[in-house]
């Protein structure tokens, strides 16, 4: 090994390794416009559907008439959570489909760096997908989610972090149970949708279900969203709850991912896994 081949080690090298994986997935996106289109397709379809439902309901519902953008904002923010989770899981499964994990895990890439790369790529994918849909909504429904200003950033950050946490846990499960478990990536997040209060207030849920709802960061975000859009009031208490819960969720998601990675090493799944 000649030393002139190498850069200095340490934090710079770590960032470079995370960047390398990021570039790997950006190459993939750059080389396939259908992939980029697919990222925007479902968020846009959802936004258009709920946009027209809103147009209809706004004349038939006094509640919606107060804030016509509440459903559309809910749809777009829900997609931040969904795409955030899917971004992590799909990027990880891309490595499994290409049978590339063995090469990655014998390179100096650390498992935590792999996780950081997954989260970074999820952010890119979510910005393309949901950002595209949000831009389409402006000419189509004369509605801009960006008018929310800074609270939007807080909601976005909390939802994508929750998506990351679930995405990491799902990736760990797929690593442990193989690609037979990949449907988890598509369905896992929908278990929390009914209790997240995306389209309705948490108060309409049965009381016992409200306890579950308040244990989810997403419920605090969507309640906070309604407070901004309907009451024109930013609830910092809800934001704080969401952020604290997210710390726990992200730590748990990372712990599940690392634990299943350790199990995969014991069971010999890192070399054999693939299509």
């Amino acid at each position, binding site marked *: *090994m*000649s030393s*002139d*081949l*190498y*850069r200095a*080690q340490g934090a710079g*090298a770590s960032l*470079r*390794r995370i*960047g*390398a*994986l990021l*570039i*790997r997935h950006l*190459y*993939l996106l750059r*080389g*396939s416009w259908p992939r980029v289109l697919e990222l925007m397709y479902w968020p846009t379809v959802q936004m258009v559907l709920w946009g027209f439902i809103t147009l209809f309901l706004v004349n038939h519902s006094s509640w919606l008439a107060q804030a016509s953008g509440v459903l559309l904002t809910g749809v777009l923010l829900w997609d931040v959570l969904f795409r955030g989770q899917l971004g992590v899981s799909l990027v990880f499964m*891309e490595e499994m489909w*290409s*049978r*590339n*994990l*063995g*090469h*990655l*895990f*014998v*390179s*100096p*890439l*650390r498992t935590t760096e792999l996780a950081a790369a997954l989260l970074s790529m999820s952010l890119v994918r979510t910005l393309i997908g949901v950002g595209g849909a949000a831009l389409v909504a402006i000419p189509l429904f004369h509605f801009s989610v960006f008018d929310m200003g800074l609270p939007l950033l807080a909601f976005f950050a909390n939802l994508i972090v929750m998506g990351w946490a679930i995405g990491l846990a799902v990736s760990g499960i797929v690593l442990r149970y193989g690609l037979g478990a990949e449907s988890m990536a598509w369905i896992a997040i929908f278990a929390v949708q009914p209790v997240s209060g995306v389209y309705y207030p948490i108060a309409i849920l049965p009381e016992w279900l409200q306890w579950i709802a308040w244990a989810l960061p997403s419920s605090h975000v969507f309640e906070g969203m309604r407070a901004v859009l309907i009451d024109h009031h930013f609830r910092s208490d809800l934001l704080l709850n969401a952020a604290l819960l997210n710390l726990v969720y992200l730590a748990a998601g990372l712990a599940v991912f690392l634990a299943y990675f*350790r199990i995969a*090493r*014991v*069971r*010999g799944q*890192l*070399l*054999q896994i*693939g299509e």
Partner: protein
Amino acid sequence: MSSALVRVASLSKQFGDVRAVDDLNFEIAPGRTTALLGGNGAGKTTTLSLLLGLLKPSAGTITLFGLDIERHRYRILPRMNFSSPYVDLPRRLTVRQNLAIYARLYGILDVRRRIAVLADDLKLGEILDRPYGQLSAGQRTRVVIAKSMLNEPELLLLDEPTASLDPDTADYVRGLLEQYRKRTGATILLASHNMSEVERLCDDVLMLRRGRLVDRGTPAELLTRYGRRNMEEVFIDIARERHIAIGLDDGDSA
């Protein structure tokens, strides 16, 4: 303290009821090329995976560069690399993109120059900008070997490195491995079913059967010991349990 670059002591790996690697003991000195031989299911790939840290041993220790792989994995990995037919590269990316990603993962300073050197060494020039998935099996093998040399590893682990290459290209790759070792002083451990490759490249041979080390020696020593003309005949003797007991089952190491 041993000066061995690879030191394996009482290494075992159990998968359920199957003991894939059973109490392995061996050492490899720096700069040696060693073959890991055995029939299908003998434990070669499992042993390589254990050495790479892809698998956690059920028992025993692996020391590489004087460091325990379980405790110092990330200090060791930048100094080694591997190729295996059981692991692939992203198929939609071009050869150049794949090599560039791994060059960055290994912290290579001048990525373009390094890829150019390897493309020249492994005759990849014409396929550098083609998607990896569109290449023939032989071309892919050359790309994976190029990936395994990106960081100029001090320890190179190769699982059947010439398995899908035509005789001409296989010969070229063997020559390249010889030159690489001469130039860098690297230590090479390769699993192979090609006995002429073993005779040409390897200083030492480790023979595995059902996860156990059943014989070892230089190719010349093994030929003499078994009274055979070539390593293929020695391989068959050992695979059919006609090996000559030399006490390795008791944990002998050389």
